[in-house]
């Protein structure tokens, strides 16, 4: 089973709302990631968690707040977003060691109004 599950699949939120995106994997992977993909663009890395610790933050604005409660779960808390934050948010995971396949979830489509 090579599945990364993301919820919700679609989210519309106002600029003053607080919402969260959730991601779950049961493959025993110890590295989890958030990527952002704008329409017709390649994905861009936002955050990397390794063994539940944040190891990379690609200068993402503080209105995005990641959380890794345990090795299977990854959340992305959203607050005071801007319309330009509307995008597909992709969660991914891989075995800790490098050179392994990175598996992506189906993504959460976010629209900020």
């Amino acid at each position, binding site marked *: 089973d090579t599945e990364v599950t993301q919820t919700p699949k679609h989210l519309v939120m106002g600029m003053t709302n607080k919402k969260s995106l959730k991601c779950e994997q049961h493959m025993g992977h110890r590295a989890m990631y958030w990527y952002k993909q704008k329409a017709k663009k*390649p*994905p*861009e*890395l936002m955050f990397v968690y*390794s063994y539940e610790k944040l190891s*990379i933050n690609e200068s993402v604005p503080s209105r995005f707040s990641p959380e890794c409660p345990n090795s299977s779960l990854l959340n992305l808390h959203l607050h005071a977003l801007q319309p330009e934050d509307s995008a597909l948010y*992709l969660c991914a995971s891989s075995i800790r*060691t490098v*050179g392994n396949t990175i598996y992506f979830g189906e993504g959460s489509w976010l629209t900020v109004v």
Partner: protein
Amino acid sequence: ELKVEQNPLFLSMQEGKNYTIYCNYSTTSDRLYWYRQDPGKSLESLFVLLSNGAVKQEGRLMASLDTKARLSTLHITAAVHDLSATYFCAGENYGGSQGNLIFGKGTKLSVKP
């Protein structure tokens, strides 16, 4: 900083024809990944190429890696309509944390009868 360039960005093929997508990268990359993305969908892992001279094949797709030339290719044999999608190559910064994939802009492939 690693830069990844793909060409062509758009490719219209007839069924049954062969073609190659090229992926050049600017600095040493530990690994080279190929992903497929259907419209409105997430990324599907196709290949992970780990070393110079690596060649992997799956169905009508074959990927290769030449680390000396900093070039990877994705060769399509006897294209069929089902292969229509956007194909991304991605490199990983040498010595960097895993998961920090730098994607090319993608090649949008359209296979016509």
